[in-house]
């Protein structure tokens, strides 16, 4: 059979889709780095999210299992070890006495990205409390929040502005593998940091007043842990550098303070109070020698508590990290309200994926049987089925190219598209194989089928368009894949299918 231009177009698009999805990646081995703690030795050594680890100290790493096994073998003792990581971006060497402060995942089996409801993670839809934001304000909010979450070591995140039919603007946050409580903590505190002497503000969080926030080595750390009441408390401290303007403000404010007599004149009468979101975090006494001086270096301290020393240590570390983040990134411009918060367990997502594949196979078999019973021709039946799968495959490829995560709603959309596709093909086959005595030439009949198909195409597009905006775009995935599916159908697969059926009809 001579291939027509339309059939060639279909073949070309299919090859292109294959390249876009890259299913051969399933053969790749190694583990993908998802996040690297910015205050860790690994980060200092140059390790970054997105790299693929191929071996550790010469042991080849195939997947998460071999990674975990290798790491636990290396750190059997608490002694410090030299770690040599071979990645796709080169070799990294560092010393560590514990497993690397990174999170990892298996390398993806293709370029296809699955949504949160299939891979697990947390998602929040956020709006500003009491005010409605315009597009520009939400844009700013997204960039500041991104910075804050990145500073906190969360990099595998999706943040985007979304709007709905009534013109409300929201921020959507998705974090793979994260928990809802973590996300809630990060978002619900606005992170407004203020250092005050009495009622006067000396400096606030953000790079305008603070030029440097210490995070490693001598500049930051937990320095003591003690028993406290029925539990433990651990103290942290870190160094920050103030801008000259902020330092001058401090000098001006301290110039008029007298000495605190009860401390024996060692400190000034008023301390420096640190507030986070209007609640007092800590009070620092100001040394008498700092009176009226523009000091740029300041040591910030705080504490964490717990029932065990380990818990207190972890609490202090988390508290320090949070404070460092706030000081680095400044406060969020608005107090946020979480209006939708979902956590999806990765186990359930895996179960869903497995069952969806099972479903696809069953549908494939049943639809094939129905078509075969009707037409009794292997050629036509397989042509319809092949076209149906080509359509789904091309839709997935387009979604991949658009960097769209395929979620459950998206898969439902693909199935809706496949359903319309099969319907259209049945129309083409029935038109072209009509046995009526007064029938028109095959070209005319296929033309008439294409009229109906275009009609059906425009009605489904018309039906899907409002879903793009309704409900903050939460069902956009469904609308998008349906529209891609039927568009691929009308532009690529349907014309090719019509040509192939025309050939079959002529024969």
């Amino acid at each position, binding site marked *: 059979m001579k291939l027509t231009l339309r059939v060639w177009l279909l073949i070309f698009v299919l090859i292109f889709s294959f390249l876009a999805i890259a299913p051969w990646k399933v053969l790749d081995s190694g583990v993908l780095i998802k996040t690297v703690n910015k205050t860790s030795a690994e980060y200092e050594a140059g390790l970054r999210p997105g790299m693929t680890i191929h071996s550790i100290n010469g042991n080849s790493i195939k997947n998460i299992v071999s990674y975990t096994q290798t790491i636990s073998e290396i750190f059997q003792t608490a002694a410090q070890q030299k770690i040599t990581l071979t990645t796709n971006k080169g070799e990294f060497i560092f010393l560590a006495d514990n497993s690397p402060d990174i999170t990892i995942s298996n390398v993806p089996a293709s370029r296809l990205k699955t949504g949160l409801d299939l891979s697990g993670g947390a998602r929040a839809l956020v709006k500003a409390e009491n005010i409605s934001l315009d597009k520009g304000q939400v844009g700013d909010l997204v960039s500041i929040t991104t910075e804050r979450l990145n500073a906190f070591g969360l990099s595998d995140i999706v943040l985007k502005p979304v709007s709905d039919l009534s013109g409300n603007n929201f921020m959507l946050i998705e974090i793979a593998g994260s928990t809802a409580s973590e996300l809630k903590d990060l978002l619900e505190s606005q992170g407004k940091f203020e250092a005050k002497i009495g009622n006067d503000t000396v400096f606030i969080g953000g790079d305008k007043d603070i030029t440097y926030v210490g995070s490693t080595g001598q500049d930051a750390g937990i320095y003591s842990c003690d028993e406290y009441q029925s539990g433990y408390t651990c103290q942290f401290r870190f160094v920050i550098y103030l801008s000259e303007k902020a330092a001058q403000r401090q000098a001006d404010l301290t110039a008029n303070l007298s000495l605190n007599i009860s401390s024996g004149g060692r400190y000034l009468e008023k301390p420096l109070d640190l507030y986070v979101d209007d609640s007092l975090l800590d009070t620092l006494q100001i040394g008498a020698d700092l009176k009226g001086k523009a000091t740029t270096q300041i040591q910030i301290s705080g504490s964490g508590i717990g029932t065990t020393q380990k818990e207190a240590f972890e609490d202090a570390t988390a508290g320090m990290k949070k404070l460092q983040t706030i000081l680095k990134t400044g406060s969020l411009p608005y107090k946020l309200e979480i209006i939708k918060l*979902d956590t999806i367990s990765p186990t*359930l997502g895996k179960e*869903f994926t497995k069952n969806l594949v099972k479903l696809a196979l069953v549908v494939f078999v049943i*639809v094939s049987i129905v078509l075969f019973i009707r037409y009794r021709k292997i050629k036509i039946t397989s042509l319809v089925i092949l076209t149906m799968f080509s359509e789904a495959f091309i839709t997935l490829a387009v979604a991949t190219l658009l960097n769209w995560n395929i979620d459950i709603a998206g898969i439902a959309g693909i199935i809706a598209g496949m359903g319309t596709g099969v319907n259209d093909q049945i129309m083409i086959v029935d038109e072209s194989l009509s046995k009526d005595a007064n029938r028109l030439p095959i070209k005319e009949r296929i033309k008439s089928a294409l009229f109906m198909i275009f009609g059906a195409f425009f009605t489904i597009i018309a039906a899907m368009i409002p879903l793009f905006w309704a409900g903050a775009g*939460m069902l956009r995935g469904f609308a998008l894949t349906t529209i891609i599916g039927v568009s691929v159908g009308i532009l690529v697969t349907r014309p090719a299918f019509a040509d192939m059926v025309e050939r079959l009809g002529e024969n």
Partner: protein
Amino acid sequence: MVISKQNVSNWYDDHYKIVLFIPITIVAICLVYIVGFYIQTGDIMRKDVSLAGGTSITLDGTIDSAILELKLATIIPDVGFRKLTDVTTGRNLALIIESSVSPEELKNAISSLGINLTEQNSSTEFTGPSLSNQFYKQLMVALVISFILMSFVIFILFKSFVPSVAVIFAAFSNIVISLAILNFFDVAISSAGIAAFLTLIGYSVDTDILLTSRVLKKKEGSVNKRIFGAFKTGILMTGTALAAVLPGLLLISGLPVSFKQIFLVLAIGLSADIINTWMTNAGIIKWYCESKNIK
């Protein structure tokens, strides 16, 4: 009497107007039922937590749900349960617990009954009441816009009033019948369910477009023959669509709830479409052809 094509055709010629009124009566009954539902509940459908606001927790694995359900209902009065079961083995895959309270409150209540909730064994979905309210309103607006856009397309396609209205009426009837059936069985509709209604608008008019184009745009054979030809193609189209949708409802278990709802709405809607296309729409088209003397 021998049933032949000719007999059927003659019978249809004599009785099609009566046949036409069967589905119209069904639609009328459904409309009355929905109005009654509205008067009783204050809404045209029962909404799930994604549209009414609240928390839904999915607990993976086999759990002795009977005791949990009893105990939880004493702590949280408006709690509701759904089970995901494996159809073949009857094994519980997951338990879905829903309530209008906050996630913390529901989690605490579940934990107080000795069930350890972790991020690994459970999924939580929370929708605030203000958002869900907006969500619902907007999806309804989307549904209306969809319908209007679809009607435009149909008018542009056929350029004549009666056949276009017949197609639009069939789509409307599909929605009304499906909604009445869902209400009757007390199914709580989610946002995915409303998306399925939108799909139904686009999906179910395929067969109506097929019927109207075959009857009005073609000249092969008689009107009855063309209707029957369209019926043969159309019923296969709806049949394959149902073949794609039903396994997800009946054979394969452990699919996401939102997915099942989309399939449920489509299955009911496509079944309703069989009568609305081949009894109502076909009758109107035949009547129209007779009055316009189209042969």
